[in-house]
């Protein structure tokens, strides 16, 4: 029998974290992700877990540092301005090679911005954001089901590579309710090992006077050694790039237009593809699931026979930079809204139709438009 329920995205992520063995959650209230904390506050005490409302996002991520270094599956959740604050701790966590999971339910910025959904955190989650050379593994759900499965997956990937993993959601996915099936989200986790830290022999569990010191740190003032640590970390990142790129391609093989979009924007593009059928424009969708590592080869393949590429984001164009890095021989257009405004299928369709007609007329690929 399937384990199907109707849930908000934020709650689905919280429940999935618990099912993935997370018993340590450190939160701080910020709209539109506060349901995650509320859910954890309700559930954790009943399963001998810890929910702690920290004094700030900065404190919360440093509590995650401590708990992760102590060997536990630990998590924090926030929304964009809060993630900016967490960046210090994220850099330290990456520098200390600690696994943890961060959920960012993105809202519009910059600054305090607004509380409506946006995708304007792409830069700060995929390009580092904090100081130093490091990467986050970034998963981008586009359904409530994926909020759950990707949160659980994030714990597995974080442990596998000893690296922070981030689930990049947004205010729509966090707040909307959809039916979800919890049957697949427990994979990769043994519930009997919740407080057994033996598979993390590096953790600070106390020496028990039986082994040498375990030390969790990011500092190394010897330049030769610090560079070597960075080289080794980048070798790990090369492994992540080799093994973990994930994406989805939807639509007819020989389409005129390729949409590139993730998360909520990808959902809107699916509707746009249907709308375009009436206009006799064939379109398909390439949806990166891992934003880092970016599924570059799959994108090149998907774009091979199309006439134009349209990148759709709820921002002024951030992921488009990674698309441009990978596609040089096609015109690339942009359709996006920001500030909490949502791109509408009709607006996106117009960009796609214009793109195809510009190419039909003069074959030019210098068209820079896309936003009204």
């Amino acid at each position: 029998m399937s384990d199907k329920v109707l849930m908000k995205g934020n709650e689905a992520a919280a429940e999935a974290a618990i099912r993935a063995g997370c018993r340590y959650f450190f939160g701080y209230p910020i709209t539109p992700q506060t349901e995650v904390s509320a859910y954890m506050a309700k559930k954790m005490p009943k399963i001998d877990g810890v929910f702690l409302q920290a004094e700030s996002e900065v404190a919360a991520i440093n509590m995650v540092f401590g708990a992760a270094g102590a060997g536990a599956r630990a998590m924090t959740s926030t929304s964009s301005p809060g993630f900016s604050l967490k960046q210090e701790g994220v850099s330290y966590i990456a520098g200390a090679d600690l696994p943890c999971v961060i959920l960012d339910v993105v809202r519009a910025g910059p600054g305090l911005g607004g509380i409506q959904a946006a995708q304007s955190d792409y830069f700060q989650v995929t390009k580092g954001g904090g100081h130093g050379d490091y990467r986050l593994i970034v998963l981008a759900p586009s359904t409530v089901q994926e909020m759950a499965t990707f949160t659980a997956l994030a714990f597995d990937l974080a442990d596998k590579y000893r690296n922070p993993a981030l689930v990049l959601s947004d205010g729509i996915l966090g707040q909307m309710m959809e039916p979800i099936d919890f049957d697949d989200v427990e994979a990769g986790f043994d519930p009997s090992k919740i407080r057994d830290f033996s598979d993390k022999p590096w953790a600070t569990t106390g020496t028990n006077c039986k082994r040498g010191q375990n030390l969790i740190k990011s500092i190394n003032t010897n330049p030769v050694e610090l560079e070597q640590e960075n080289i080794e970390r980048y070798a790990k990142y090369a492994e992540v790039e080799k093994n973990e790129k994930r994406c989805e391609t939807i639509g007819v093989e020989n389409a005129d237009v390729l949409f590139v979009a993730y998360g909520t924007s990808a959902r809107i593009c699916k509707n746009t593809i249907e709308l375009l059928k009436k206009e006799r424009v064939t379109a398909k969708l390439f949806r990166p699931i891992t934003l880092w590592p970016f599924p570059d080869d799959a994108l090149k393949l998907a774009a091979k026979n199309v006439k134009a590429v349209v990148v759709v984001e709820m921002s002024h164009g951030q992921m488009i930079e990674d698309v441009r890095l990978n596609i040089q021989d096609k015109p690339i257009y942009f359709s996006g809204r920001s500030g909490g405004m949502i791109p509408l299928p009709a607006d996106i369709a117009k960009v796609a139709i214009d793109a195809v007609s510009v190419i039909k007329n003069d074959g030019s690929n210098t068209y820079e438009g896309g936003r009204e």
Partner: protein
Amino acid sequence: MEKVFSKPHVLTDTPTHYCPGCTHGVIHRIVAKVIDDLGIEGDTIGISPVGCAVFMYNYFHCDFQQAAHGRAPAVATGVKRVHPDKIVFTYQGDGDLAAIGTAETVHAATRGENITIVYINNSIYGMTGGQMAPTTLMGQVTQTTPYGREASTQGFPIGIAEMLSTLEGPSYIKRCAVDSIKHIKDTEESLRVAFQRQIDKKGFSLVEILSTCPTNWGMPPLEAMEWERENVFKVFPLGLYKDKEINFYHKDVANADEKAIKASENSGTDCDSIKEED
């Protein structure tokens, strides 16, 4: 023959990087002796700060995590919540604890977090070369108060022991010094009480230890001690600031009333704030 003196077992043989005359070495040894005496080396997890003591993990055999500047109490909280039966302590200077990490300090204290903080107050930023600290005395000359600390632009020194002792959460708060044998003995005894408080799961303990910084004060070590006694002790009086058994009322939520949970579900403010935007 009976052995009456030896290096504490938890200390390593690594020579410290501290300046000549610095009291970090003295305090490390006292912390180490208390860890030895209580027999908790194998259970202890230390959190080192940013500041002169950043490398203290090199001098102790026990497990360590190195925290970001000011964040040690938050990191210690994370460790302690995972290992409630282990002994978790932070070791922080006044810049780390009383400036950039004030929020983490106050909130770990008010939560009654069952950790021990060893707080070294030497009235100056040592590692960065002698800038004004939140604890710098009025009139004290530092790199960033070249004309002496002056109230109209730099305000007044902050008394952490005084401030934290107004909170309900902390169980034990004491201010000590290491300028004399008598005070060193008192520091050792106070740290023993502080760690014991944690072992007994009785809550937050902090020992503030007044310390000298001959290098950045620009004085020979003995003169620095004298200056400390004459000036620092007046602003930061030694003594016991709080010693109270905290009653941590624990509600059995495993069998909590479902009605209460339902009520909390309906009290969210998020929906209200979203409506505001409409």
